[in-house]
């Protein structure tokens, strides 16, 4: 029988853990508990609720307004792991520098990043966005169209990424990818990168931007990239979207080209 005094001595440890990892608890609360309660209460999925909010609160045809509304919903109402405004700025800057003509996005989710990318693309550029889930894709489609981007700019592909990538060349006529944005399952980062390499779509100067490489993190992906020597790696350190205290980062890979 453990005495209560010994149990009490563990109180400082408990408080320490609570304080030190408070942001993770906040994340747990907002991303899991609130979602669960809301799912039960409304009977709608999280993405549908987000879409409803955006439909009622934003100006159609204005990407900036849609993005702002998204940010507001994600930080004040509920939580969806979009790329967020701060990391989004890095993305915008990169797109400004590269001016890519062919862009591949893995993991559309609700279309936040799709809108973000599409609005800073140069004229005549084309964005292929890949989403696995049917339901999410429907909502993403609505949001993209709401923002005013047509089929010529943004093409939404509903299929798992590892099925789409080998077929990109035949089915979609893609010869070379200038920019790849990865924000889907963290486990798929590495196999998808290897698939892209295998299909020969990446060439010299192609940029791959991978989100969330620190938290939740893709250690295998980073290890592979560091060791392969094919890429120049830059880690953009930032905090997790909509939650201040958790550190996160984006990995920017610049293809050096095969000699």
């Amino acid at each position, binding site marked *: *029988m*453990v*005495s209560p*005094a*010994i149990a*009490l*001595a*563990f*109180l*400082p*440890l408990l*408080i*320490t853990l609570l*304080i*030190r*990892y408070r942001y*993770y608890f906040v994340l747990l609360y907002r991303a899991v508990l609130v979602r669960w309660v809301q799912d039960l209460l409304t009977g709608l999925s999280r993405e549908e609720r987000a879409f409803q909010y955006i439909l009622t609160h934003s100006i159609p045809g204005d990407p900036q307004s849609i993005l702002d509304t998204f940010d507001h919903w994600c930080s004040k109402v509920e939580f969806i792991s979009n790329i967020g405004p701060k990391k989004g700025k890095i993305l915008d800057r990169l797109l400004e520098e590269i001016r890519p003509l062919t862009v591949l996005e893995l993991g559309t989710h609700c279309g936040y990043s799709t809108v973000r990318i599409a609005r800073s693309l140069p004229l005549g550029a084309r964005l292929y966005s890949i989403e696995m889930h049917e339901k999410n894709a429907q909502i993403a489609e609505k949001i993209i169209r709401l923002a005013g981007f047509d089929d010529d700019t943004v093409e939404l592909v509903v299929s798992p990424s590892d099925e789409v990538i080998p077929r990109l060349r035949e089915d979609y006529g893609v010869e070379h990818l200038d920019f790849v944005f990865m924000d889907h399952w*963290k*486990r798929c980062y590495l196999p998808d990168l290897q698939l892209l390499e295998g299909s020969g779509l990446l060439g010299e100067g192609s940029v791959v931007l991978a989100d969330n*490489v*620190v*938290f*939740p*993190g*893709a*250690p*295998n992906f980073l290890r592979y990239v560091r060791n392969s020597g094919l890429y120049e790696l830059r880690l953009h350190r930032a905090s997790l979207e909509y939650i201040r205290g958790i*550190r996160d980062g984006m990995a920017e890979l610049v293809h050096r080209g095969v000699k």
Partner: protein
Amino acid sequence: VKNERNPKAKERDTKRKLEIHKTTEQKTENKKRKRSHSKQRGKRNIDDEDKGGEQISKQKKNRKNKKTKKLLTEEAEGEGYITKQKKKRRPQVDEENANATKQMTPEGPPKKKKRAKVSESEDSSSEKESSEEEEWKVTALTPEELEKLKEAVDEKKKLITILRGKPWPMLKKLQTLKESHDFLEKFEGALGKGKAKKLYAYKVMMLKRWMKFQRDFENFKTACIPWEMKIKDIESHFGSSVASYFIFLRWMYGINMILFGLTFGLVMVPEALMGKPYGSMPRKTVPRAEQASAMDFAVLWDFGGYAKYSVLFYGYYNSQRAIGWLKFRMPLSYFLVGVGTVAYSYMVVIRTMARNANEQGGGDDTNFNFSWKMFTSWDYLIGNPETADNKFASITTSFKEAIVEEQESRKDDNIHLTRFFRVLANFLVLCCLAGSGYLIYFVVRRSQKFALEGLENYGWWERNEVNMVMSLLGMFCPMLFDVISNLENYHPRIALQWQLGRIFALFLGNLYTFIIALMDEINLKRKEEETVKLNMTVWMANLHNGTLAENSTAPPITADPADVPRGPCWETMVGQEFVRLIISDTMTTYITLLIGDFLRAVMVRFFNYCWCWDLEYGFPSYSEFDVSGNVLGLIFNQGMIWMGAFYAPCLPALNVLRLHVSMYLQCWAVMCCNVPQERVFKASGSNNFYMAMLLVILFLSTLPAIYTIVSIPPSFDCGPFSGKNRMFDVIQETLEMDFPAWFGKVFSYASNPGLVLPFLLLMVLAIYYLQSTSKTYKKANAELKKKLQAQNEENKKKNKRAALKASDPEEARNSASEQQWHQINNNASKKEMDTWGCKN
């Protein structure tokens, strides 16, 4: 000859020099170099201020002083160089080219009037020399020429010493230096003839040998310092703050070695060898009731059974005045060693503190904040790319922070918030301290209740509750403090000190609660002793009665020592408690190390392959080395040793063992499972803050020990002082019995308060006097510093003025030389100040 040196050869030469410097001797070499340089600098400054002939005489003095190794090595190197040169002599054309290039190099800008004269003459003389050299190559020298040569040599020597102050470009300086060295090398030996020449060569060779030997000896000395390489390795990976802990640990190990030597050599070994053997007396025998379980591991682990009745504890020692054929005064030795260890510790700690105080010369300079950051923030001991990256990042952030701070200090609106947070943090820490204090108090009270009811009725948890709670609180509260201190937003160095202070308060509270509990227990034991004394007389009477009844003439039957009733020797109990505390503390430390660091590292490392988030960067991550917690653990451990060593002579030995093991274990753990701190910061290796804490702990730990020695009478049937009224009576006894009568008389006179009080007064006066003089020195130091700063300010202004006049090249050059001149002055005054500080 000297002008012909071509740039390639020079390059080779410098390369060779560099290679030499890269060897392991580098350290000692550099030290020597620095020393000689500083000497030179100081001298040169004096020279600069003097003029003409006086300067030359000074030079000569200087030369005498400067028979340092540095010059000689360079000369030796130069010698080698010359031989090389001779082998690879180029045709005349090359020589001419070199001459041409030399002429093309710009002459030094004009200097201030004071120095212009001197340098002019030097320049001309050097030119003269180049022409004269050719003549001297003739082997036969007339006395006149010899005189000339001597002059030239002196000239060169002078040139070398004042070279640094010259406003020449660096390249020219180097060139001139090398040329002059070569010249000296060549002709200094030639001054003597025949035998003298040989002697000179012999002397140079011997000097070289001697130097090499000295270098080797230095290397040997560094190799002899225990764990030096390990600590350097850690320092390179983790920065100097972590290394300072290990240096402290090593220092502590040294002290404990001496304590161990004292107790082991003068107390434990004599008793074991010459004292009465085990089983001869009641105090040296395990009682009958305990004999069955006396060898069980559980009992031994608790330091009961045979461990309790051995030299490890106070109770085993006999009160026999002199033991063995050496007539070793055991009780006296026991007492003196107990006092001596404490006295020695005081001496060492205070001496180290005083020595460290000298090292911290300058105070904080906020005047040139950014310059300091710019030029001094790199930690050159880092040898690991990851740490270097961290340091790089931390310097960048510190720059950012400093800029923000500067901006904020102008705005100063956020300061209230910071202050509020700091107050709040301290409040929280106080709450935490009070809570932990109360918890320990509660537990101690409970344990007393258990003890009254008899510990046999309770389980392991109840019996070890106090130790467990103390260890757990000591482990977890610092973590909480660490989290709370994030609120305060201090610089890590200051944060470390706060953290140290807080943990210090926590540990101190814990320790003193423990001591108070022990005191209660001592009182209980003494009451028990009274009853045992009574029982004893009854038992004796019974024994005698029984024997008397049977046959009255036979000698009294002696009972087996195991059956004799005995008192509850409180001294041994205290010693046992301390030993148990040390053991449990050590175990906790090691287990925390293994679980908190090693297992965590293993988990993070290997689960990272199959986990859904990045364990290394993200949530658990690798642990950082906790400097403050470890330092305080060490200090308090030492405090317990000081406190308990009198009642358990085995404590220093245990501590030496513990320190030895933890040196290796922690070195390994740091290198294999910890990551460098994110903000690597500098900490001085000889940290006076640690020492101050050690001193406080030393004082606080000797307090209860002295109290028990002075005010509580020793047990009647155990220990070296049994039968005496007080423990220190042993001194008086020795004085009476071992010294002649007059000595006792003298001692009694000397200990007369009429003599002691004036002596004390005198000491106080002396301390007061010394303190006031040191204060004056400090003031003078501060004045000098102020002066220096004022000068710097002036320089700044002058520089600005010079920059404004930059359009006029002549003017600009003038001001540049002036500036340099000032720089030199400043350096000199700084040196002066340093010496002041040393005296201080």
